[in-house]
C-alpha cells in the first residue's frame, strides 16, 4: 500500500546487453496535499543512495533522470508537513504520485501549559506530560487544580472531584482515551475512575463548548489524551517510582511501547499505589489508607490514512473513609463539629477498614479510522464499560462483611465521527452516538437500594463547523441534539410515597403492591438541544481575544430523581424528586490573552445562567429510632454563576520566573436570593521559580497558596433537641472554615545516563510549615483537619 502508483508509462527497448547496467530511466513525480489535493511546490525530494536532491515546481512536479534499474528510496519533505519516505522499484521509466500530510495538528499538537490555544474558540487549558508526571502518585483532581478556575470537592484526600467554574459531578464530563467515562458520577463521594498515568496531556474545556463530547457538560469537560505514537521501529519505556512521607505512601508506574515502522504498535502500562493513614498537622487521620491499581493494554495499527486499535483498561481503587466521619445521628454530628479533634484516633496503619469503598472500572474499546483523499476522516468507535462499586459500612451480626452499596453499571456506546477537512479554512465534523446503560443494584446487600434498577438509552447527533474567516479570525459553530430515556424499577415505602404526594401525579406507574412497599416503573424521556458558538481574533502578534456562547441541557441524574433514604454516614436523609426536569444553561465567556518574550497574561471571564438548577437543600427534620435527622431534598431553582480566572507569568531573566494564578467566582440562587452552596472561595497562587539548563536542567519553585474564607454561603444551620439532655442545640453545618495559607516547594534535575536514557529526580514538599487548616470544599472538614506536611521524592527513568 505504500506504493500508491507504480505504473509503466512506456517500455524502453534496450540494446541487448545482459552485463551492462542500464542507467537511463526517468522518474516523473507529482506531490499533492493529501487533504485538498492541491499540488505542493518547493517540496524537497532526497535520494540518499544517490545523494541527489531535487525540488518540485509550481505544479508540484519533479523529474529525476539517469536512474538505474533497481530499488530507489525517496524522502519527500515540505514545510508544515510530515516527511514521508517512499520506496519505488525502477524497472523502466516510472511515474509516481506522492501525497503529503499537510495538516499535522492531529499528530503533533502544540500545547502551552495552562494557556488557551487561541486558534480555538473555547476556553481550553492543557496540562503537559511533565506536569502530569508530578502527580503520578496522586489523583486527577489534584493535578487539575494547577489550572486557574479549576478546584476540587473532596471527601478526604483520596476522593477528589474536579470543579470547573463552580460546577462538578454530573455537570462535568470526563473523557479518557476518547471514551466518555460512565460511572456513578453523581455523588460527591464518587471520584472519577481514571488512572492519571494513562494520560499524556490533559485538556480542560470550560463550559459546554466541546459538543463532540456531549451536550450536557454544563460545567465543562476534562479530556485525557494518550500519547500519539511515531511510525518507527522503537521500543520505549518509562518508569516512575515515588515515595511520600505522609501516609508512608509509594507509587510505581511503568509503560512500555513497541512501535513498528509499518504502523503496528503495542502499548502496555501498569501502575500501583498505596498509602497508609494520612496525618493532619497534629494527629493521625485514622482509616484513610488506600490502595490503587491501574493497567492499560493497547494494540493496533496506524498510519496517516487508516488505523484501528483495541484497548483494554482497568482501574481498581480501595479507599478507606476517615473513621471519625462515621456518625450515627445528629447528636453525634454536633459533638463531632464541636470537638477540635476527631473523636476516633488510632496509631498509623495500612489497614483499610469499614467505612470504605472498593471500585473497579473496566473499559474495552475498539476504534477504527480511515482518511479519504481530498475529503476527510471517518472514525468509528465502540466501547463497553463495566463499573462495579462497593461501599462498606460499619454493620453488625451476619451482615458485618456485606457491602451496603453494590452497584454494577454497564454501558455500551457506539459512536461515529466524520471530519471533512479538505478545505483547511472550513472544517466540518458530523457525529452520531448511541448508548445503552444498565444499572443493577445487588439485593444481596440486604439494605434498601439507594439507586434503583434502571436502563438508560441515549442517542445523539451533532454537527460542528470550524471556519477560518481570515488569517486572524476563527469562527466555530456547533449544534447537537440528544435523546435520553430512563426506564427504572424502584421500590417506595408507602409512607414515603404518600409523604412525597406522588399518588397525585404518578399513581399510574405503580406495578406491584408488596405489603409496606410499592414497586413502581417510572419512564422518563428527555430531549436536549445544545448549541455552541465562538469567535477568536488575533489583534496583533502579542494579543488576542475570544468570545463564546454555549446553550446546554442536562437531564437529571438518578440520584436527583430517585434518592430516598437515610445516609447514616452523612447524618441526613436525602430525597430525590420524580418531578425534577432538565437543567438549561446559558453561558457566555470571554478571554483576553497577551504574550510577548517576557510576559504571558491570560484573563478568562464567564457568566452562566442556569434555569431549573438542581440543588439539594435542607427541608426539615424527620424523627427515627436513631434520633432526629435533617432532611435534604433535591429541588429546582435558578442559579447564576460568574467569575474571573487569571494566569500571569513574567520571565525576569533567563533563569527566574514569577507566576500568578488567581480565581474569583460567585454563585447565586436567584429564587432564594442567597448564595449557592459549595462555591470555591477566592484563591491566589504565586510561584517564583528558578531554572538553569546548565546545572543538569535544574529547576526549583517556591509556591504560596492562599485560599480566602468563603463568606458567601447559604445558612443551612438548624437547631435540634437532644432528648437526653433536653437541650436545644445549633447544628452548624454551614459556617465556613477560616482562610489558610500554605507554602509548597518543588525541585528536579535530569541525569543523562546514556544517549537514550534520562533519569529525572524530583523533590516535592507540600504544606512545608505543617499548617493546620480545613478546606470548605472537603466534606470531612467537620471531623478533622486537612493534610499536614508531605515530602515526596520521585524518580523517573525514560529508556
Amino acid at each position, binding site marked *: 500500500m505504500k506504493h500508491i502508483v507504480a505504473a509503466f508509462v512506456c517500455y524502453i527497448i534496450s540494446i541487448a546487453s545482459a552485463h551492462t547496467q542500464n542507467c537511463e530511466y526517468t522518474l516523473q513525480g507529482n506531490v499533492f496535499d493529501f487533504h485538498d489535493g492541491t499540488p505542493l511546490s518547493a517540496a524537497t525530494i532526497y535520494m540518499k543512495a544517490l545523494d541527489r536532491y531535487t525540488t518540485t515546481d509550481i505544479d508540484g512536479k519533479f523529474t529525476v533522470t539517469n536512474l538505474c534499474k533497481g530499488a530507489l528510496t525517496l524522502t519527500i519533505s515540505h514545510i508544515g508537513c510530515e516527511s514521508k519516505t517512499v520506496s519505488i522499484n525502477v524497472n523502466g521509466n516510472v511515474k509516481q504520485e506522492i501525497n503529503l500530510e499537510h495538516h499535522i495538528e492531529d499528530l503533533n499538537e502544540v500545547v502551552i501549559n495552562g494557556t488557551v490555544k487561541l486558534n480555538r474558540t473555547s476556553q481550553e487549558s492543557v496540562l503537559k506530560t511533565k506536569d502530569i508526571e508530578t502527580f503520578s502518585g496522586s489523583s486527577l483532581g489534584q493535578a487539575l487544580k494547577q489550572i486557574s478556575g479549576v478546584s476540587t470537592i473532596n471527601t478526604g484526600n483520596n476522593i477528589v472531584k474536579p470543579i470547573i467554574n463552580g460546577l462538578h459531578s454530573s455537570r462535568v464530563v470526563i473523557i479518557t482515551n476518547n471514551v466518555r467515562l460512565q460511572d456513578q458520577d453523581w455523588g460527591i463521594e464518587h471520584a472519577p475512575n481514571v488512572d492519571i498515568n494513562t494520560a499524556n496531556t490533559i485538556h480542560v474545556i470550560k463550559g459546554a463548548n466541546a459538543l463532540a463530547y456531549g451536550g450536557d457538560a454544563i460545567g465543562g469537560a476534562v479530556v485525557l489524551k494518550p500519547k500519539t505514537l511515531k511510525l518507527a521501529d522503537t521500543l520505549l519505556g518509562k518508569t516512575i517510582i515515588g515515595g511520600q512521607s505522609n501516609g508512608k505512601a509509594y507509587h510505581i508506574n511503568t509503560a512500555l511501547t513497541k512501535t513498528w515502522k509499518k504502523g503496528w504498535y503495542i502499548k502496555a502500562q501498569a501502575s500501583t499505589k498505596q498509602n497508609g493513614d494520612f496525618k493532619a498537622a497534629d494527629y493521625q487521620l485514622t482509616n484513610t489508607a488506600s490502595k490503587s491499581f491501574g493497567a492499560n493494554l493497547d494494540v493496533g495499527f496506524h498510519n496517516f490514512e487508516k488505523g484501528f486499535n483495541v484497548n483494554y483498561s482497568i482501574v481498581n481503587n480501595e479507599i478507606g473513609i476517615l473513621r471519625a466521619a462515621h456518625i*450515627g445521628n445528629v447528636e453525634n454530628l454536633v459533638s463531632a463539629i464541636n470537638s477540635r479533634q476527631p473523636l476516633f484516633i488510632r496509631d498509623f496503619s495500612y489497614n483499610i477498614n469499614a467505612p470504605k469503598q472498593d471500585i473497579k472500572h473496566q473499559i474495552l474499546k475498539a476504534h477504527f479510522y480511515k482518511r479519504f483523499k481530498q475529503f476527510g476522516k471517518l472514525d*468509528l468507535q465502540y466501547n*463497553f464499560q463495566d463499573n462495579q462499586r462497593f461501599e462498606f459500612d460499619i454493620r453488625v*451480626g451476619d451482615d458485618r462483611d456485606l457491602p451496603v452499596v453494590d452497584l454494577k453499571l454497564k454501558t455500551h456506546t457506539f459512536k461515529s465521527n466524520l471530519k471533512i477537512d479538505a478545505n483547511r479554512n472550513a472544517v466540518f465534523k458530523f457525529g452520531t452516538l448511541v448508548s445503552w446503560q444498565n444499572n443493577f443494584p445487588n439485593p444481596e446487600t440486604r439494605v434498601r437500594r439507594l439507586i434503583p434498577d434502571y436502563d438508560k438509552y441515549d442517542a445523539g447527533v451533532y454537527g460542528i463547523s470550524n471556519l477560518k474567516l481570515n488569517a486572524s479570525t476563527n469562527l466555530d459553530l456547533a449544534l447537537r441534539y440528544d435523546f435520553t430515556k430512563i426506564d427504572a424499577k424502584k421500590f417506595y415505602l408507602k409512607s414515603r410515597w404518600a409523604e412525597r404526594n406522588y399518588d397525585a401525579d404518578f399513581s399510574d406507574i405503580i406495578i406491584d403492591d408488596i405489603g*409496606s412497599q410499592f*414497586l413502581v416503573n417510572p419512564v422518563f424521556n428527555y430531549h436536549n438541544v445544545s448549541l455552541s458558538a465562538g469567535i477568536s481574533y488575533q489583534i496583533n502578534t502579542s494579543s488576542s481575544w475570544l468570545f463564546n456562547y454555549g446553550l446546554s441541557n442536562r437531564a437529571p441524574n438518578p440520584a436527583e430523581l430517585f434518592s430516598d433514604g437515610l445516609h447514616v454516614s452523612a447524618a441526613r436523609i436525602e430525597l430525590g424528586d420524580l418531578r425534577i426536569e432538565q437543567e438549561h444553561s446559558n453561558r457566555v465567556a470571554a478571554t483576553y490573552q497577551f504574550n510577548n518574550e517576557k510576559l504571558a497574561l491570560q484573563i478568562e471571564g464567564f457568566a452562566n445562567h442556569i434555569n431549573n438548577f438542581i440543588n439539594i437543600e435542607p427541608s426539615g427534620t424527620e424523627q427515627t429510632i*436513631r434520633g432526629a435527622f435533617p432532611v435534604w431534598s433535591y429541588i429546582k431553582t435558578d442559579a447564576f454563576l460568574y467569575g474571573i480566572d487569571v494566569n500571569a507569568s513574567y520571565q525576569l531573566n533567563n533563569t527566574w520566573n514569577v507566576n500568578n494564578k488567581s480565581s474569583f467566582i460567585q454563585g447565586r440562587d436567584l429564587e432564594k436570593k442567597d448564595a449557592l452552596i459549595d462555591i470555591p472561595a477566592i484563591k491566589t497562587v504565586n510561584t517564583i521559580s528558578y531554572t538553569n539548563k546548565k546545572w543538569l536542567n535544574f529547576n526549583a519553585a517556591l509556591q504560596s497558596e492562599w485560599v480566602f474564607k468563603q463568606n458567601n454561603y447559604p445558612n443551612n444551620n438548624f437547631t435540634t433537641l437532644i432528648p437526653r439532655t433536653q437541650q436545644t442545640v445549633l447544628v452548624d453545618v454551614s459556617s465556613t472554615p477560616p482562610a489558610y495559607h500554605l507554602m509548597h516547594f518543588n525541585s528536579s534535575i535530569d541525569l543523562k545516563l546514556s544517549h537514550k536514557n534520562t533519569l529525572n529526580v524530583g523533590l516535592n514538599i507540600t504544606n512545608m510549615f505543617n499548617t493546620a487548616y480545613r478546606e470548605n470544599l472537603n466534606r470531612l472538614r467537620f471531623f478533622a483537619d486537612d493534610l499536614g506536611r508531605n515530602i515526596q521524592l520521585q524518580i523517573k527513568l525514560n529508556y
Partner: protein
Amino acid sequence: MKLLKNSLIAFTTVLTLTSCSDDDNTPSVINEEEVITTLTATLTPVGGGETITLQSRDLDGDSGPNPPVMTISGNLTASTVYNGSIELLNETEMPAESISEEVKEEDEDHQFFFSSTSNLVTFSYSDEDMDGNPLGLEFTLTTSQAGTDVVTFTLRHEPNKDADGVSDGDITNAGGETDISVSFNNVTVQ
C-alpha cells in the same frame, strides 16, 4: 477496505458477546435485616406489682417519613426497684426478628446508656459483656419521689468502654455511633 471489513466484524463480535447480559427482570424486594423498628423496655417491680412497658415503634424504619410511636403502659411507683430488660425487634420482617440477640452476640461492641432529666429515676447495669464491661440489655431502675421525668435510652455501637466514666454509664466520653436514641417524655412516678 479489508481492514474496515475486519474491524466491523470485530465490532459486531464484541457487541454481541457483551450484550448477552441479563434482561430486565423485576427487581426482588429487599428485606432489611438490620433495621431496628421497635424498642421495648419491660420494667418488673422487684417486690411484685404492675409490670410497666415503655415502647418506641417505627414501622417504616429509619428511611420512612413517619415518626416512631411512643407508648407508656402505665405509671411507675415511687421508691421502688424495677428489674428492667430491653428487647429490640425488626418488625419489617415476618416474623419479627430479634435484634437483641445480635447485640448480645457482639456485646463488646455495644452499650446502652440511660438517662433521666429530673433524676426521679436512676439506673444501674445488671449484665456484662465478655470483658466484664456493662452492656445494658438487663438493668435495674430505681424510682425516688413522685413526678414526671424524661427517660432516654441510647444504644452506642463501638463505644470506647475504657474511657473515663463509660463503664459507670456516663455517655460523655463514649464515642461510637448511635444506633438507637429514644426519649419517653412523660414518664410519671406516683
